[in-house]
């Protein structure tokens, strides 16, 4: 269960700053959600932690070791293009094992075992296009879990699923996460998803991305979002997120018009720093 530390990280794309002075500590074995408007660099941050990109400044450590490239114990899961269309479900799950030097037959045997554990063994010979969206994400999760990752990085993993499937997959993730005891970092633009799943929510502001609020959510599972304290956190984060979205989406004059039209929460950006840690929830 690795602890992830993001230390004063900046990431530029050309002259555009995507992430600015991100300083975060993600506790071992926790489930952290990165929430923010489109373009706030949450995917970039995830890929930096995964070692698929490198910070322009600052450093990232996992278990105290600097991240210099993809780590054996860290797996990334996306919303789409997760599974390889040209491999059967079995070979998709065996993919990572083969990369680790296992023979084809041994990799397949373990892949089927993993599929049995998640109730997908009957679909081993299917190709991804023959599966439903939820099943595809379950296979993607199985493909990650078969490698026994200690760090699971998920980028909007349920973003393309319909509402019901999404809810079921969220519960599914909670159970598998508890069993695996991996450290999970989940990127989402859905605040409710973050509130349902996460131990800690990191709200990022838009361009350049920077944590503006870090909220611990110690509520037990399953959670009821209408529940008193959770609801307070939700309302406040909603207002904050809406403001961030508006700020990243609109220019000054439009913002004034929006404010007049009743979006009270929208005020000029005053640069809230990451110190606004909320412990009340």
């Amino acid at each position, binding site marked *: 269960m690795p602890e992830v530390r993001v230390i004063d990280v900046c990431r530029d794309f050309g002259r555009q700053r995507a992430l600015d002075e991100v300083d975060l500590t993600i506790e071992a074995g926790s489930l952290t959600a990165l929430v923010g408007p489109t373009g706030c660099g949450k995917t970039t941050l995830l*890929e930096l932690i*995964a070692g*698929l990109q490198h910070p322009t400044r600052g450093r990232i450590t996992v278990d105290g070791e600097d991240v210099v490239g*993809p780590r*054996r114990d*860290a*797996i*990334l*899961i*996306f919303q*789409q*293009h*997760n599974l*390889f*269309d*040209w*491999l059967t479900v079995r070979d998709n799950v065996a*993919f*990572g094992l083969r*990369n*680790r030097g296992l023979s084809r037959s041994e990799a397949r045997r373990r892949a089927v075992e993993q599929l049995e554990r998640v*109730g997908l063994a*009957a*679909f081993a010979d*299917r*190709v*991804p*296009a*023959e*599966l*439903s969206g*939820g*099943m595809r994400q379950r296979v993607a999760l199985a*493909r*990650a879990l078969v*490698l026994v990752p200690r760090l699971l*990085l998920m980028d909007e993993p349920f973003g393309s699923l319909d509402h019901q*499937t999404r809810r*079921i997959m969220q*519960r*599914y993730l909670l*159970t598998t996460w508890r069993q695996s005891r991996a450290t999970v970092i989940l990127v989402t633009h859905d605040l409710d998803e973050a509130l349902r799943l996460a131990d800690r929510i990191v709200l990022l502001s838009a361009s350049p991305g920077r944590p503006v609020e870090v909220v611990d959510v110690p509520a037990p599972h399953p959670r009821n979002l209408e529940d008193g304290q959770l609801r307070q956190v939700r309302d406040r984060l909603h207002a904050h997120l809406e403001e961030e979205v508006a700020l990243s989406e609109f220019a000054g004059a439009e913002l004034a018009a929006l404010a007049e039209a009743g979006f009270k929460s929208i005020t000029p950006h005053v640069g809230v720093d990451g110190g606004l840690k909320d412990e009340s929830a």
Partner: protein
Amino acid sequence: MSLTSNIRIWRGPAPPSSAGASRRRRSDLRSVGGLVAAWLLLGTAWELGARLGVLNAAILPPPSQFIPYLIATSGSVGLGVNKVSYAQSLVETVIRVAAGFGLGIGTGLGVGTLLSALPWARVIGVPIAQILAPIAPIAWIPLAIVLFGTGDGAAVFVVFMGVAASMTLATVAALGGVPAEYIKSARSLGSSGWRLWLRVILPAAAPGVATAIRLSFFAAWMSVLAGEMAGINSGLGSLVILGQQEFQMKLVMAGLVTIGILGFGFDRLLLVLRTRLLWWEARGARAEA
């Protein structure tokens, strides 16, 4: 617990049933039936038109005339040194197109992959291919004849030039179009180097490449015929021109129909190869249906 009962809600798409298989067979039969029926209809109209004098049979000889003509002359036409055999022309053209197409596709795939893998080579290579690709294959004929004479070499060269550059560009485009998430997923799962290319990037690009190959065949087929009509004095294209020069319209018609049928046949062959090699596509399409 309740979770497991919830998960059981998902039922995957039903396994391919025998009803589905028979529906597929029916649709195959229908397309073959349509092909035969369409040509019977056109042939009958052609015959009737010629018999009734609506069509000038001297210019548009119907199948009942050019097929017996081919058999009666045992496919040998022309006079003296110009005498050519139908069967020999057909074989010549097929060999030329196969060689030029194979070399062109192979080169395009190889160079395209190399250019995709090496960014600095791409800076030089892509502009060169971009200038070579729009040159009409026929435009290479004068150079081809000077280089290789009027034989097979020139024809293969023309086909090659008509295919290689555009196939290079198509390969670069297909490889460049592989979703970044595939590559990131693969790297995150420990794949790198040649393994990443072989197991992820190339299969992901394969459908785009396959489409480009099929389109390239039409370019190749037109190139070889145009070349044979414009200077390379042998093969099917040359046979059609010879028929026109000697006003043997039966020969011209026989040549045209042969060109159409062969081109169609090759295209079907490529389609069958695609469905065999990219087997997952058909299964995905079936699941969509």
